[in-house]
């Protein structure tokens, strides 16, 4: 933050745009100085509390992360456009969202309909519109990003939703941003995208979440546990149950995405974004039970090697330790997650799964295989 010189106080009220950051100066001519200073700075470099309005494009934005992110950005006064095929409704009122909040958001959000795999269309439509900032929330491969960069040569910032899945498996944990990545991982497209961004010279920021959870989650993370708890079924967990994982609430992730906007400390940086504490598999089952007001669950451990589940997944997490340190985001960006695990799961349960809404039907076939064998051995 640049040092501000205090001038003679005047009786005029401060310019409203900057008043939040200058309230303690009681309306001095500082306002003028700061405004001028901002114009002289390279675009996007200065971080002021009430940012200037930006023209923002979100690739995606109608399914999960973008739903929360777009709302935050619109509230901050930015002009936000969602680029989607239009398969899902552009907006939908969220459980717990007031009518007035929703209609305000709905009236302001813009939509650019298209298929991002149609690279020519992406390039031409983006170039015609022109955007200051792009949030790429649903990109998987580097080729998908090339037309965006081509279309917007004066882009102030490209903010990418990557994944902690890029880290090379290690005995030494937690995963930190400086650690080795795995070029063969399932998420190598994300890695290739990060490399492309690095090489392109654009001002980029990449966030690497671990497991994301929260209302509207389409990945069966908490949903998997809630199905079983609701049905009063035991929770089958592979091996010892002490494997450690980590969940990050979608609202905290959305906040992180906003925090890096126009933030010079985030320029060309990667940040792990997730919850502050990690959790064992057994611990997660218990936390979900607490969140939904269920009694302590019955946990059944099994050896997955003794079963052939075919193509079905018997458990939603990788059977290994998988968690990342969020200390860099904490120290560099001052980011502190709002939700702890039980609070976050409660939020998810109350606003989504606890209301009977879910993305995937419950499928207990693999559970039954496990339980039948386990109880057969015991009897």
């Amino acid at each position: 933050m640049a040092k501000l010189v205090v001038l003679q106080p005047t009786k005029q009220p401060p310019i409203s745009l900057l008043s939040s950051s200058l309230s303690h100066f009681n309306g001095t001519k500082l306002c003028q100085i700061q405004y001028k200073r901002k114009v002289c700075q390279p675009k996007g470099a200065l971080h002021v509390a009430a940012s200037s309005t930006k023209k923002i494009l979100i690739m995606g934005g109608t399914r999960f992360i973008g739903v929360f992110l777009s709302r935050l950005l619109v509230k901050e006064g930015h002009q936000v456009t969602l680029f989607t095929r239009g398969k899902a409704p552009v907006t939908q009122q969220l459980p717990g969202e007031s009518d007035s909040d929703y209609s305000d958001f709905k009236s302001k959000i813009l939509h650019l309909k298209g298929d991002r795999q149609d690279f020519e269309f992406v390039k031409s439509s983006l170039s015609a519109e022109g955007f200051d900032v792009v949030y790429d929330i649903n990109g998987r491969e580097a080729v998908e990003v090339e037309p965006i960069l081509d279309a917007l040569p004066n882009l102030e910032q490209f903010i990418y939703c990557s994944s902690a899945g890029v880290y090379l498996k290690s005995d030494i944990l937690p995963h930190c941003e400086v650690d080795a990545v795995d070029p063969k991982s399932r998420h190598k497209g994300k890695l290739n995208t990060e490399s492309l961004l690095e090489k392109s010279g654009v001002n980029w920021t990449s966030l690497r979440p671990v497991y994301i959870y929260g209302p509207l989650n389409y990945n069966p993370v908490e949903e998997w546990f809630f199905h079983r708890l609701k049905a009063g079924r035991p929770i089958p967990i592979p091996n010892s149950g002490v494997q450690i994982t980590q969940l990050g609430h979608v609202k905290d992730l959305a906040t992180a995405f906003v925090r890096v906007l126009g933030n010079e400390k985030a320029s060309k940086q990667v940040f792990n974004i997730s919850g502050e504490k990690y959790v064992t598999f057994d611990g997660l089952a218990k936390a979900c039970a607490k969140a939904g007001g269920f009694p302590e669950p019955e946990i059944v451990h099994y050896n997955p090697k003794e079963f052939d589940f075919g193509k079905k997944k018997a458990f939603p997490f990788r059977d290994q330790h998988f968690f990342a340190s969020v200390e860099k985001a904490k120290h560099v960006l001052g980011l502190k997650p709002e939700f702890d695990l039980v609070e976050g799961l409660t939020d998810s349960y109350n606003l989504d799964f606890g209301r009977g809404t879910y993305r995937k039907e419950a499928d207990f076939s693999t559970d039954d295989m496990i339980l039948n064998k386990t109880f057969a051995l015991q009897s």
Partner: protein
Amino acid sequence: MDLVRKQAPWLPLLLHLPLLHLLHFLFILVSLNTNSGGHAVIGFYFAKELLGSGHEEITRAGGKTMWGDPADVGNVVAGATFDVVLDNNGKDLDTVRPVIDRAKSSGVKQFLFISSAGIYKPTDEPPHVEGIKQNLHYCRMSGSGVEKYIAEVFGSWAVFRPQYMIRSGNNKDCEEWFFDRIVRNRPVPIPGSGMQLTNIAHVRDLSSMLTLAVEKPEAASCNIFNCVSHRAMTLDGMARLCAEAAGLPVEIVHHDPKAVGIDAKKAFPFRNMHVYSEPRAAKDILGWEGTTNLQEDLKERFKEYVKIGRDKKPMQFEIDDKILEALKVPVAV
């Protein structure tokens, strides 16, 4: 000067220093128990680091030494004044109380206590974190009676909770336990799944943290610091890294100590559970950074292990043999 000499007979040792310097240095008492478990090594290292950075100290080993029973500390250091006391000796209140009381009455400003991360209760949500800093006037304590007593008596205190450490001179086997088996081409029996996480730090990390607390007493005050490396490792991972450091293969064998019928504590140098803390308070409050690099540090340690000839030392592996024998029968892990 004569008056001073009467009160503090050891002062002549320091008289070669200009009086001006005496005012700037902190006098630090490090109370050690060289026979205790892993803590002795912290004191030695800390002493070296402090002397290096210009603080004068009286310790029980190396440097300027004063020998005596810690319970008798009042008489041993009669008349001497210290700014900081580091107690690396205490296991219980009875042992530490005389040091605390003496320090308080002689005007010691800062009391540093080496506790243990072992006092944390097992958790489903690792890592163990210290909790937020409390107001200077009300410091919330959890854990042992010793920590509570220190907080009651002293205005400026800090408690450090270390875990496992590597370094030569350590009385407690850590990496050596793995080396013993790896160099003799013996399987390494690890209880449970081998996935248990623990922090294994090089003692220089702990020493640098203690030094920072001495240099930033106001920031450190009324805080608990997990005194661990910034990275954790699985038990299997530790075995693999030790083997890598030795340039030898390793065979890891998992077992259930209860099923085998052995004393888990004697069989293995680590607890059979996650013992996983993070040094967040030290990073946030002291601006501390860890430098433990187990891959490199273990290579160093292996060289020293071979240098002292421990790889050739004849050894018995009774408990190991019992485990390996039992494993011929399938055991649920």
